[in-house]
């Protein structure tokens, strides 16, 4: 048994003080009311009963004193709030999740209530409460009064940051006393469980108290936000916004100082409303989206992300590489800007006579210069097979009738890839002859030129879609514009995180409540924690009342003064 409010030495000191006070009270002379009577003859036998309380008389009623001391001692013990099952010396570290994920509905209020309740049950000298907002911060140190916790919790709000529960657990594990066994410290997580259990030391006992696990309709909330390239305009992107719940009110879109006159398209299905915000400039500005309504100030109803930058691909075409069909394609492609100075170009289009270029180049070569009709030269980091596979689909080469072209050419039409210093796309110049081959008239030619120039320019791809709680698309190592799901889930919180392009992304996305499955290590909330049933307060109070009743009976019967 241990005490929740006091240490045993302090309790004993208090008991001594109470015993002393009671002794003095017993010794104090009672202030009598003076009465003159005709005789005190018959009181002389009865007066012995009153002498116990006089200062000059010796202490005559130890039984009454012991009974009073027992009552007062038990009351003092009840104040100390003894706990029967307490884990004998176990230290408790309560972690209050202060991340953005706690901002939904009244989860944070429920979490604060849970922490207060928990702190009231834990031994004061061996428990602490840590606030896990942007960084772990001590809310209540061991030994501090519980009333301070309520004051410090009063003004706390979730922060627009990822959870620091993991860091707090690591700190709690590191601060364990030397030589403590696995049961010496119990970490209680109130809120979101740490997302990476690998960071939790295996010998650390921890308990997860989920808060607000029941799905509640707490109004509209943004659950996904992403961008995609605009359909027709290279320098623009469309933002994709998914809102769950709410009454479908239109989001407020802001781009800082940028004057935006785009349109918002809305579709709705299965409780979700999806918005396509079209015509956003792809210039790296920060897109702010905010839902109107009562919950407009909550983290769940606002999101922001930095839009990609999509600068035009500057192309310089050499004199001997000029071609009418090529020119038409270049002019039609909004992503391409032709420049007159090769030094300013991102990509150059060369004829076969040109020497090896210092920049990525689309080169028309003679048939005898290379056996492959189309040869892709790439960096050594890329795999040639992956590059070929990508080119087949992305460059539209699968749409070319290679058989017919081979019959016309009298030789095989091959596609190849090789490692080189610069990226290059080398194409037989003879394929541009419209009288022999139908390549320039085919749908594949604009794709070959446009996508080829983009591949050569190595433009950063636009992350197709970012949704909290889902796996982040990661670019393929072999395919600059390809993506594959990342192993890690995108944080279900707001804040900054590393994007697939290696840059910093800023978004505030709250996933629909979908508790992250936690394999192993999850303890029942009751495990390892002192419960209310362990408190002896109620029983002690009942015992005190019973003793008071006994004292009253003894007093009434005259057995004690």
């Amino acid at each position: 048994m241990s005490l929740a409010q006091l240490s045993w030495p302090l309790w004993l000191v208090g008991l001594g003080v109470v015993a002393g006070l009671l002794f003095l009270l017993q010794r104090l002379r009672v202030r009598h009311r003076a009465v003159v009577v005709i005789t005190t003859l018959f009181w002389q036998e009865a007066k012995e009963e009153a002498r116990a309380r006089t200062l000059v008389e010796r202490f005559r009623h130890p039984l009454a004193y012991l009974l009073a001391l027992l009552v007062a001692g038990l009351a003092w013990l009840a104040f100390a709030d003894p706990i029967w099952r307490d884990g004998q010396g176990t230290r408790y570290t309560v972690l209050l999740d202060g991340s953005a994920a706690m901002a939904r509905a009244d989860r944070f209020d429920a979490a604060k209530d849970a922490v207060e309740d928990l702190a009231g049950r834990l031994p004061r000298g061996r428990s602490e409460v840590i606030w896990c907002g942007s960084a772990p911060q001590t809310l209540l140190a061991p030994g501090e009064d519980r009333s301070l916790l309520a004051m410090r919790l009063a003004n706390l709000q979730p922060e627009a940051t990822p959870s620091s529960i993991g860091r707090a657990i690591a700190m709690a594990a590191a601060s364990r006393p030397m030589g403590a066994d696995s049961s010496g410290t119990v970490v209680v997580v109130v809120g979101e469980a740490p997302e990476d259990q690998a960071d939790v030391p295996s010998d650390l006992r921890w308990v997860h108290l989920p808060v607000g696990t029941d799905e509640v309709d707490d109004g509209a909330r943004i659950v996904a936000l992403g961008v995609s390239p605009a359909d027709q305009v290279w320098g623009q992107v469309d933002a994709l916004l998914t809102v769950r719940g709410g009454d479908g009110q239109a989001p407020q879109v802001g781009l800082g100082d940028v004057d935006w006159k785009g349109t918002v398209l809305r579709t709705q299905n299965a409780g979700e409303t999806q918005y396509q915000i079209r015509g956003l400039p792809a210039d790296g500005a920060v897109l702010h989206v905010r839902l109107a309504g009562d919950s407009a100030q909550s983290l769940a109803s606002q999101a922001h992300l930095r839009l990609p930058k999509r600068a035009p691909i500057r192309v310089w075409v050499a004199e001997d590489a000029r071609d009418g069909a090529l020119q038409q394609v270049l002019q039609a492609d909004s992503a391409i800007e032709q420049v007159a100075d090769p030094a300013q170009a991102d990509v150059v289009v060369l004829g076969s006579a040109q020497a090896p270029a210092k920049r990525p180049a689309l080169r028309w070569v003679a048939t005898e210069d290379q056996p492959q009709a189309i040869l892709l030269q790439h960096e050594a980091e890329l795999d040639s097979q992956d590059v070929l596979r990508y080119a087949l689909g992305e460059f539209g080469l699968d749409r070319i009738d290679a058989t017919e072209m081979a019959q016309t050419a009298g030789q095989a039409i091959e596609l190849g890839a090789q490692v080189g210093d610069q990226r290059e796309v080398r194409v037989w110049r003879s394929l541009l002859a419209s009288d022999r081959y139908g390549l320039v008239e085919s749908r594949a030619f604009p794709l070959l030129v446009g996508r080829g120039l983009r591949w050569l320019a190595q433009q950063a791809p636009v992350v197709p879609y970012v949704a909290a709680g889902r796996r982040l698309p990661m670019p393929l190592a072999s395919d600059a514009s390809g993506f594959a799901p990342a192993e890690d889930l995108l944080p279900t919180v707001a804040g900054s995180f590393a994007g697939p392009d290696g840059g910093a992304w800023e978004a505030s996305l709250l996933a629909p409540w979908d508790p992250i499955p936690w394999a192993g290590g999850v303890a029942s909330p009751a495990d390892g924690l002192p419960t209310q049933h362990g408190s002896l307060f109620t029983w002690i109070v009942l015992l005190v009342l019973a003793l008071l009743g006994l004292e009253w009976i003894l007093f009434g019967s005259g057995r004690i003064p």
Partner: protein
Amino acid sequence: MNQPASTTQTREPLFDGDFLEQVQRLRLVARRVAPRGRFAEQASKDRGAGLEFQDYRPYVPGDDLRAIDWTVYRRLGRVFLRLFEELEDLPVYLLPDISASMWLEDPPRVRAGLQSALALAAVALGQHDAVGVFPFANDLTILSRPKAGKSRIFTLAQQLQSLEPGGQTDLVTSMKRFQAMGLREGLAVVVSDFFDPGGVEAVAKALRGIRHRLLLVQLVRPSDRNPEQSLQGDLQLTDCESGAVENVSLTPHVLERYRASYDRFAQGLADFASSRQAGLLALDTEGPVIDQIATLFEQGRYVV
């Protein structure tokens, strides 16, 4: 704090016309009064010229020839005198307690005590008995020597009404003083609360030496046995006579002990009265005095 009641209440008339009318129906009857008394209505141990035949005795020279029973002389040839009962008075000695305790409370016990004494005096004077009054506190004083005469009731009333509070009760000294007076045997009526500091033993010791017939009028009130009617809590009790102080916390147990002590005292007084063949009347000072006095007189007669 209870203060001694003003003596003004005792200054009020102790009796009125109804009082005298009520006591006229009562009579004190002595089985036989002591000899050498004054002619009155009580049977005496003296042989004399009364109407009630009592005995014969042989004639001796000098006897009154009118007392010779000639019928007996004719039958027996011997001369006998017929002896008749002598009728004399019963001296009644009233000993009212006027100690300080009698004047405390409201109404004071002394009023009921003086009324009871005056009632008995009225009865005695009404049948030509002599009545003397000897108030006592720490000692006995003589207020009125024994005298007869119906008209003396008014004088006695005035004398009783003029009494002042005395000191501490000292029954032993007072009764010794009374006994030392050598008064003719009569009826001694002690009117007191009998709360002698020495307890009932001192009371018995004091009264045991009195060679008179005794009637004890114990002045009581309900709160004597049940003090919780007027006392509660933690008290500093001061004896109004001795000044002794007792600190008492009134608990049920203390009250129980108190009642037990009181009952022992009352029983001791009753036992003494029984052993002494004395009369004992517990007179409630808060009740009607004459009605309670009348309970002594069975069919209007109280035989002593």
